[in-house]
């Protein structure tokens, strides 16, 4: 049963990675990064269950909180970018200084 959980987490991670590589919208890219983080949370919890260790759940707690903080700052940056440049298409954001 344990390899099946890992397989599901792998597939979710790959779907998130596809979304990060192929989408041009910054908000969707951040959403797919969240999907990748969730798939690693699934790996941690399934390892904690099948290998009889409680440490996986502690780490999931930390990953959850760090990803919430990262989303806060990332979306604040996206809003600031949208106010300055009027676009959230990543193809238009090619320069470091505007």
């Amino acid at each position, binding site marked *: 049963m344990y390899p099946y*959980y890992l397989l*599901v987490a792998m597939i979710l991670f790959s779907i998130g990675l596809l979304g990060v590589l192929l989408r041009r919208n910054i908000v969707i890219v951040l959403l797919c990064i969240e999907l990748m983080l969730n798939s690693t949370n699934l790996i941690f919890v399934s390892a904690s269950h099948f290998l*009889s260790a409680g440490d996986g759940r502690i780490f999931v707690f930390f990953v959850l909180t760090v990803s*919430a903080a990262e989303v806060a700052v990332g979306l604040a940056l996206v809003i600031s970018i949208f106010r300055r440049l009027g676009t959230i298409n990543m193809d238009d954001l090619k320069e470091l200084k505007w």
Partner: protein
Amino acid sequence: MEAVLFTLFSSVAIGAALLMILQRQMVYAVGLMILVLISIGGLFLVLNAEFLFFVQLIVYAGAVMVFFVFTAMMIGEPEINVLSLRSPQFWLALVIVSLLLFQLGIYVGGIQPPTGLPGSFSIDVQGGDQLSYIGEQLFRNHVVALQGLGVLILVALIGAIYISRDPDSLEKDDSTGTGEEPPATEGPKL
């Protein structure tokens, strides 16, 4: 029963994730992501992690996704072409991701199934349930990381407020605020 629940939750999660990366509207993508999160929370529940199921629903599906919805409402313009099939990037990304899946699949296929009963990790804690176990572990063995997490959240809060402030609606703040005289604009008259 566990296999049925696992199949149900994992198929919903994978299907919703596949649909999510193909959405044109941001709010639809966030809604499908909420479905993915609830399915992964269901998988947590099947794996006997009730506390993490609750935390996932409250924090991820309840706070982080609402964040995304706020941003999508503020921005609100859909993407012109979601995935263009003719760009070389598309095929390169597919090749890379399939290579990754292949390598991970080889690794996962070679894993020895763990011996022993799953889910029977010994909790030597007074309460004996999961919440007290996690609380005790956090405050005994991982205190520094927990406090660091608090600082991280504080920094993220201040940073998010500062970064997303609207510069046009703020007053000009070149005064020192204590009622000093404005600096003299002319030099001494000759």
